[in-house]
């Protein structure tokens, strides 16, 4: 083709092909001769910080924000840092559960299965499981799977949801993702059309939600958890939030709730969940149930109960109407396999057309990573009584959860022993979220530095002790209150040291600013 023919072809293509719509506001007639209102470059740079997508610039993710970046700086300079800023058990010495890793190892190196001595290296059930998985993964773990995840694994996940909740689950309504965060974001991206779409988010919240809502151009509609009532969720508070949002012209489309809570740890009662579901039905809101900590429960009064189960038990009209998405992951629980990036979501009462669109978006990234998928399989379909690995698996699981329960108490008590600090018990999840009454002089000093007071506290804590936490302002909190989030993940053997370092620092800090 000659040059002019190429140009002509390109112009035709731009105008006619569906792929390259210019959009109604950019028809040639309207914009010929007008320049874009956006500046192309600044100081000779097109990639100038002032010329980036504003939503990206505004987005914050405190878990790996200012405090973490400072901690990294100090670590690189040689300081020993205790990373209690993120729920990352293995980084603090937790060991992986054995069975899933044995299965993973065999799946990734199938030639091990052909060795005559394989049964001296691996238990029989790990071998059987690996073979079953490999038979279902055509081409092995190196091939892209179905964009929703391998069908066998999705069936296992559906079965898990069915057994957990007492209601059947459709494997085609289960999506596996590179961590639960990806699934959350897929849903938010679908729900948020423009800045008028509001998403209810608990305050305090896990900042994946605020960050994603910001990125997708929606509005975060906060509802406050009540610290004085053990971080309880109040329907009245929810209703008020919705009312206020609507008064500002927002369409409240979805509601996130985190159960057990993050950073707050509270476990919702069955009554609470019923109220929530009724609320979602009345207001016609999509429920996003972040239940990634469902295995991490440290009290017996309120065991974990899934939204899906409660909704089904409520019968009609709730059972068939409330649009519910439930999230789970391999990153938490007893296994803590954060680095594998294995997550899933189950969609109940979600419109078929919406599921197709979400499927389409998933397919743009081709498929979730296979090792994460295999880890999900081991999570939802673990060794059963009678299997070779059952005893060890059960022991590892029980011991880790018991240890977490003890650490939940240790940390809560330690905080409650500090002057001016109160801390609700960590009923679940992996965090402690103490409230710190900062002396007025500290608040003033922070103001002078242009920092939030809890940021100042956390920075000083980091510099004095190497303990890396996340200021409460990163999660949201009642105006005038200050918190920080730390994990409860340091091992029991070092927990006393952790607590005493914290304690020493706190006393010094209070003294300094008295």
């Amino acid at each position, binding site marked *: 083709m000659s*040059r002019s023919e190429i140009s002509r072809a*390109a*112009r035709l293509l731009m105008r006619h092909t569906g792929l390259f719509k210019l959009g109604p506001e950019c028809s040639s007639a309207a914009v010929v001769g007008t320049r874009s209102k956006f500046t192309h470059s600044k100081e000779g740079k097109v990639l100038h910080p002032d010329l980036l997508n504003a939503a990206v610039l505004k987005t914050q993710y405190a878990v790996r924000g200012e405090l973490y970046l400072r901690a990294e700086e100090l670590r690189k300079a040689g300081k020993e840092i205790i990373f209690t800023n993120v729920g990352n058990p293995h980084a603090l010495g937790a060991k992986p559960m054995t069975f899933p890793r044995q299965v993973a190892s065999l799946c990734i190196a199938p030639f091990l299965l052909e060795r005559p001595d394989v049964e001296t290296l691996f238990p029989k059930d790990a071998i059987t499981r690996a073979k079953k998985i490999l038979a279902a993964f055509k081409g092995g773990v190196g091939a892209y799977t179905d964009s929703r995840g391998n069908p066998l694994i999705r069936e296992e996940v559906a079965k898990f949801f069915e057994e957990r909740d007492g209601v059947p689950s459709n494997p085609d309504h289960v999506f596996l993702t*590179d961590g639960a965060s990806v699934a959350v974001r897929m849903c938010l991206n679908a729900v948020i059309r423009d800045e008028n779409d509001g998403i209810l988010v608990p305050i305090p919240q896990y900042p994946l939600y605020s960050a994603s809502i910001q990125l997708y151009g929606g509005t975060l509609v906060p509802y406050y958890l009540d610290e004085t009532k053990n971080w309880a969720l109040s329907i009245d508070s929810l209703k008020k939030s919705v009312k206020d949002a609507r008064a500002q012209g927002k369409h409240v489309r979805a509601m996130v709730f985190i159960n057990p809570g993050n950073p707050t740890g509270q476990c919702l009662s069955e009554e609470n969940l019923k109220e929530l579901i009724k609320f979602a039905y009345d207001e016609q809101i999509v429920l996003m149930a972040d239940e990634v900590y469902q295995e991490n429960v440290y009290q017996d009064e309120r065991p974990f109960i899934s939204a899906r189960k409660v909704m089904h038990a409520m019968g009609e009209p709730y059972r068939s109407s409330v649009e519910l998405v439930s999230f789970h992951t391999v990153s938490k629980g007893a296994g803590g396999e954060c680095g*594998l990036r294995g997550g899933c979501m189950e969609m109940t009462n979600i419109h078929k057309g919406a599921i197709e669109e979400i499927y*389409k978006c998933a397919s743009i990234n081709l498929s979730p990573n296979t*090792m994460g998928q295999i880890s999900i399989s081991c999570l939802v379909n673990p060794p059963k009584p009678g299997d070779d690995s059952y005893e060890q698996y059960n022991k590892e699981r029980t011991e880790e959860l018991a240890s977490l329960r003890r650490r939940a108490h240790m940390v809560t008590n330690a905080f409650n022993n500090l002057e001016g600090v109160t801390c609700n018990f960590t009923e679940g999840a992996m965090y402690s979220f103490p409230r710190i009454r900062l002396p007025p002089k500290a608040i003033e000093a922070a103001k002078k530095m242009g920092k939030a007071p809890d940021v100042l506290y956390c920075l000083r804590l980091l510099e004095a002790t190497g303990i890396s936490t996340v200021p409460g302002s990163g999660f949201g909190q009642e105006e005038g209150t200050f918190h920080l989030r730390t994990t409860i993940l340091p091992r029991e053997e070092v927990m006393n040291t952790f607590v005493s370092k914290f304690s020493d620092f706190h006393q010094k800090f209070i003294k300094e600013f008295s």
Partner: protein
Amino acid sequence: MPTKTTKSVLSLESINSNVIEAEYAVRGEIVQIAQKLAKELEKGATLPFQKLVWCNIGNPQILGQKPITYFRQVLSLCEYPELLSVPEVEKLFPTDVLSRARQLLEQIPGGVGAYSESAGAFVVRKLVAEAIARRDRHPCNPEEIYMTDGASPAVHYMMDLLIRDGRNDAVMVPIPQYPLYSATLTLYGGKLVPYMLNESCGWSLDVQHLRQQLHTAREQGLCVRGMVVINPGNPTGQCLSLQNQEDILMFCKEESLVLIADEVYQANIYDEKKEFFSFKKVVCDMGILNEVPLVSLHSISKGFVGECGRRGGYMAVTGFPESVTEQILKLASINLCPNISGQICCALMMNPPQEGEPSFELYEKEKNAILGSLKRRAELLVSALNKLEGVSCNAAEGALYAFPRITLPQKAIDVAKSLGKSPDWLYCRDLLQQYGIVVVPGSGFGQADGTFHFRTTFLPSETDIGLVVDNLTSFHTKFMVQYGGIRNTNGTHHLNGCSDS
């Protein structure tokens, strides 16, 4: 309180419209039909074919390509470090595998089960940077490297960063293109400014044309922020000449454009006369490294490694101010980190066994076998396609695909129109339904107006590809006959509207 309706909140009418508009043909409608047929076959239905042959996607291992042993050995130890303590471990694995696994486990805190730094574990980035420096003979700082779950997330980050609110930001994309680019532009609300690759000149690129397209876009009020280049090309397979690369870099420098260089097929080059030069190398050789914002993408999914399902890759970022790379890091941190196993695989790909090491021989053998086989299959398929009436296919200089141009009879075009589909869609659908071969219509990649193509991989194994070729040939004849295609009895091509350049 809204009136209670039976409409779902999340229905087709009420979902983010960018999501609705985005299209991704590689797993589009033809593939969905294929999935339905696959299910029917499983249930024992009788179809005109015994099995489906998935030629729609560059997914080598599903079609029988074996993984590289060394990588899998190291990874199995990283997944299950207890094996390292087993007394017989030295009988299980060669010593270089053992030491590599130990090194990685020592230097990745928490092993494969812990979140790493959001840009990737430092030891991984260091290994990748060292390999890039060796490849390009220019320094590479680990801080330039951001590991990603496959190369695709990197494209998302860049589109998210570049496309501002207001719907006038645009990125230049080659036509034909890999539809990740069009899809992400739609998702992020940006515009695509096409630049045509010249089919009759081996899919080469013309800088004058680039300028023309840019000029036209600006006249229409678009703010063109960047340019994508795929080298080797997808679906087209061409390797850019060094001159082309220099022209592109100069163009980006002069017009202040971010260059996104998709180089995931850099290890798939079959034309001995061509050599891969990374854009990083060229921009350094030209002495303008700091003047061109450049994002280079790589992945473990392609090459001879083919570890698609593992999701491993990286973006190497140069010529960006720190205030901007901070934003990339921030975006990456929201998903905490890419999967560690994929990160490790990427580091291994870039740092394979060296001569003298125990695993070297087997590694080289496996690598050469796969590359040699890919080359043979590429040539076999392209040559067979060129024998078909009304079909012409440029040589696959690189990548994993053939992108033949087909001349469709008017009747076929009319039938397609009546179905509301593109004519190449009709061709692909009939091929699927009659022979079970799954390919992707050219309209999914973009093509010059009035031309029709399809993309097929040449990944079916050497045992199967002969049959694929035979079936394609039979189908093509049938199709042309059915739709009254042009017959030329001495078997030469007859392409309508093909102009000489």
